[in-house]
């Protein structure tokens, strides 16, 4: 009997409707049903209306600030008119790395009163194309450095199907490695990075075509190891370059044009 994909069971625990095959399977499989029930307990505990993001603002009475000032000893005071103005302000949605993206507006309108940040023009962060000519040079370096890698079986993470050494781009102090592993048809990219800490920005990993004209975002990566699932069906021979960029927290989902390391996957 083919059990449900564990990811689907987790979504079912959150109350999402599983795909038909999994839904049918769940009706008969006590094991999968137990898994959903055990994952649902934290949902029941935390996903309650009282803890949801606030929708209705209420101006606190003056004694609240008086107590805060007394406890903290601060000498300044908020302006009452501005607290009233705060009634129409929103709490920004939590977003991974504050990715206030275009989709926030186009996919699902913000609830009334929420803050939607204005877009910053792309030119603010410099010419996006300036890293493109570097791709060819890195491709050569990556291929030389990587050598032939035999697929090795790794019990925990699946078979290694491709690897890349990640080399710093000019003027960057960073390094890393990337590995693609496959297990039962699912491929994951593990990126191991040694990179400087960022303030107001984050790292993102991409798969680029050899000419660096097209690219697929894979996800956000951090110092150390990060494992990300690759999009199903992506042809790694068409997207052979692993690229890690610095993305400012500006909500622009496209590549910033600033890369720290890059390398070619060798299979």
């Amino acid at each position, binding site marked *: 009997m083919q059990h449900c994909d*564990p*990811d689907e069971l*987790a979504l079912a*625990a*959150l109350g*999402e409707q599983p795909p038909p095959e999994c839904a049918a399977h769940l009706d008969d499989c006590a094991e999968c049903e137990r898994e959903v029930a*055990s994952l649902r*307990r*934290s949902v029941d*505990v*935390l*996903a309650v209306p*009282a*803890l949801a*993001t*606030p929708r*209705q*603002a*209420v101006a*606190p009475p003056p004694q*609240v*600030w008086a*107590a*805060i000032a007394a406890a903290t000893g*601060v*000498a*300044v*005071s*908020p*302006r009452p008119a501005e*607290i009233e*103005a*705060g*009634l129409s*302000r*929103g*709490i*920004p949605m*939590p*977003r991974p*790395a*504050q990715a206030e993206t275009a*989709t926030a507006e186009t*996919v*699902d309108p913000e609830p009334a009163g929420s803050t939607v940040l*204005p877009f*910053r023009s792309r030119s*603010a962060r410099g010419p996006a194309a300036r890293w493109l000519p570097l791709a060819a040079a890195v491709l050569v370096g990556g291929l030389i450095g990587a050598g032939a890698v035999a697929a090795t079986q790794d019990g925990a993470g699946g078979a290694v199907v491709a690897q890349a050494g990640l080399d710093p781009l000019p003027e960057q102090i960073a390094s890393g490695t990337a590995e693609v592993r496959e297990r039962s048809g699912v491929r994951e990219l593990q990126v191991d990075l040694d990179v400087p800490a*960022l*303030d*107001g*920005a984050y790292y993102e990993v991409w798969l680029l075509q050899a000419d660096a004209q097209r690219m697929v*975002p894979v*996800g*956000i990566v*951090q110092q150390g190891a990060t494992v990300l*699932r690759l999009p*199903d069906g992506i042809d790694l021979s068409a997207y052979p370059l692993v690229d890690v960029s*610095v993305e*400012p927290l500006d909500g622009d989902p496209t590549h910033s044009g600033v890369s720290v390391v890059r390398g070619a996957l060798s299979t």
Partner: protein
Amino acid sequence: MSLLAVRRPPLGTVADVPTTQGSVHQGAEPDDIEVARRFVDGDEQALAWAYERWAAQVHGMAVRAFGPGPDAEDVTQQTFISAWTGRSRYRPDQGALPAWLVGVCRHKIADTWAKRERQRRSTEAATSEARSAPTAGPGSELAAEVADRVLLLGELNRIGQPQRSIIELAFFEDLTHAQIAARTGIPLGTVKSHIRRTLERLRDRLEVDGAALRS
């Protein structure tokens, strides 16, 4: 890297800004990022700005949980006091300051529930002692849930990004995984596997330290 040199313009400017005691307003209001930066630096004016901008939202949340009155007011003031004294724990790269304040407020709400529950039980214990009735009444399930909520909110704080924001969008914004992927630009499969791993992590935490199973 000079990325921070590029800042988005302030959302709005106030033409006539009355000066506040102990502060220097320079005609334009600082943007939220600047307020957050000064808040972390311990600039007292930033606490007042944060209060002006977000106290009504925080208080709205407290009022929703407890109704208007002393409990809600206590939650709001505790949220700002804790945020100020614990400002070194705020990490700008992990999210915006108002979202962090809302997270602090969640803890204060959960703490207040737990405090009320302890009071209720001590009253009940005193009563049941007099009647020599068993203490594990219908309230013990509620007590366990209240304790688990405090436990899991603490565990959420230890989860790194983007996993934490993903699960918060699912829990507190009631978004589906597809909506989360669309909103964040994170691939669908990545969102799914992050959700699964986070739910597994929270389950593990409950199994090791949760009150519901032990009671």
